[in-house]
């Protein structure tokens, strides 16, 4: 049994920021991630980030990942466990981790869950054909492994992920035949949308995919227009030739550990699904368990980093670690988060958050 002060599950933007802040206050941290690298989804995000200077705006996700990971690796107070899967959290406060075919029990005084989100899928005939991918998989193939998923891509979903991944596919020299979006409006930032449209990718709002075409693999897709009630309009079907159908239809929080730990959960569509109730310190209904990042509600990487920092500070502070600047640091992060969420595009998040704070 490994007794440790703070265990963080998830080495993405939230988990890394949490580890850094907690260790800066003096706490001993164990960071657990199932991948063989740190950085989470950041390692495939080649585009520049939005946000403010303090949140590393205009820097690229890949560079932020590299920098955060190297800071964490250079920190003596942080023990890193990669290729380590958190299997479960039990009543006696033990977190079981599987690493290299060994089961390792950890007994943390504080636990920060920063497991992120999982991609949603879409139901349509033939969606099991090879060539139907989630956007995350396409991004991993192209930006991490340098592998083309195919030659012609139909993107489903015009949120930030669908539009950004389309842009990255173009950068990799892959044709994107179009982006379809069931909603009447583009969900992505319009500057991103404008960027792919002028590079030759049409965006069709109020369109969905009816079926994938193909015998052994995707050779095309039938798309169809939707009416005001999101119902297909008969006769508007169009066949599109494509060998990749890429689904970018949203994320949902990856909450299994929280359910198992008995955290009170609530269904909040604006945050992507079931999320834990938490107080202003990001502590859940189970004392000592904190959350940060997409597992607490689907947002952007900048918000995840801020939340991670806050959870790290608060978890360490609850173990009586402190610094001269603790109060102002905490306030500064909270102000930045408020700023990030303050505009019209943050409205959904604000609505969601009112339902989860206790």
């Amino acid at each position, binding site marked *: 049994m490994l007794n440790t002060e703070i265990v963080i599950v998830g080495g993405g933007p939230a988990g890394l920021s949490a580890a850094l802040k907690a260790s800066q206050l003096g706490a001993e941290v164990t960071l657990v991630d199932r991948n063989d690298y740190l950085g989470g989804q950041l390692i495939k995000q080649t585009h520049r980030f939005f946000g403010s200077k303090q949140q590393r705006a205009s820097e690229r996700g890949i560079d932020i990942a590299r920098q955060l990971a190297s800071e964490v690796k250079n920190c003596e107070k942080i023990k890193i466990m990669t290729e380590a899967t958190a299997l479960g959290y039990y009543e006696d406060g033990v977190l079981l981790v599987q690493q290299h075919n060994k089961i390792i029990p950890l007994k943390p005084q504080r636990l920060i869950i920063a497991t992120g989100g999982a991609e949603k899928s879409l139901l349509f005939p033939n969606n099991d054909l090879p060539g139907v991918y989630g956007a995350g998989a396409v991004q991993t193939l192209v930006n991490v492994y340098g592998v083309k998923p195919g030659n012609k891509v139909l993107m489903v979903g015009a949120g930030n992920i669908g539009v950004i991944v389309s842009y990255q596919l173009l950068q990799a020299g892959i044709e994107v035949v179009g982006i379809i979006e069931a909603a009447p409006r583009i969900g992505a930032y319009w500057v991103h949308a*404008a960027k792919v449209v002028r590079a030759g990718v049409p965006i069709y*709002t109020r369109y969905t995919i009816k079926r994938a075409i193909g015998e052994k693999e995707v050779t095309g897709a039938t798309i169809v227009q939707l009416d005001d009630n999101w119902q297909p309009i008969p006769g508007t079907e169009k066949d599109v030739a494509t060998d990749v159908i890429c689904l970018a239809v949203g994320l949902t929080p990856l909450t299994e550990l929280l359910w198992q730990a008995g955290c009170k959960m609530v269904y909040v569509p604006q945050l992507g699904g079931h999320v834990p109730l938490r107080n202003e310190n990001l502590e859940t209904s189970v004392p000592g368990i904190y959350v940060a990042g997409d597992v607490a509600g689907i947002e952007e990487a900048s918000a995840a980093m801020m939340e991670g920092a806050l959870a790290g500070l608060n978890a360490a502070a609850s173990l009586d670690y402190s610094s001269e600047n603790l109060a102002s640091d905490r306030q500064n992060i909270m102000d930045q988060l408020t700023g990030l969420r303050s*505009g019209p*595009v943050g409205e959904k998040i604000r609505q969601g958050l009112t339902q989860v704070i206790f």
Partner: protein
Amino acid sequence: MLAQNGIPTPEDIAEVLPPAERLAKGPVAIAECFQNIPCDPCYHSCKQGAIKEFTDINQRPQIDFDKCNGCGSCMSRCPGLAIFVVDATFSEQEALVKIPYEFLPIPQVGETVTAINRAGQAVGEARVVKVQNSKVQDRTAVVWLAVAKDLMMEVRHFKTKEVR
């Protein structure tokens, strides 16, 4: 319109263009940023103090066209690649349009490329006058295109003839 198809309308564009008198004086930045999103690197990038300070991070950039000298430092800091510089005084027949560019191959000076508008359509040809791609720009090159004067508010992208 933008929210439906990603293409700004002529009205959207008219709202952010510098006045004709200013265009007649030389290069100037145009921020084609039409949405209130939490983002402010353009303000921090401008050494001329031409981009007004954001009192709220969700504000859209406001350029003081008299202070802007068209240097283009803001162009490669904008995560949306939404800032362009136009120089209407380049020559009798041609104007210069500076375009942020993140595709390969990066064109060569002197090369002729296909000029593309905001809807992704080819609208003519353009000549590459200069390519800025320094370390500071961090992989967002700025390509200077000479285009026919009547196209200077149309051309916002280009395609090279050679595709890798």
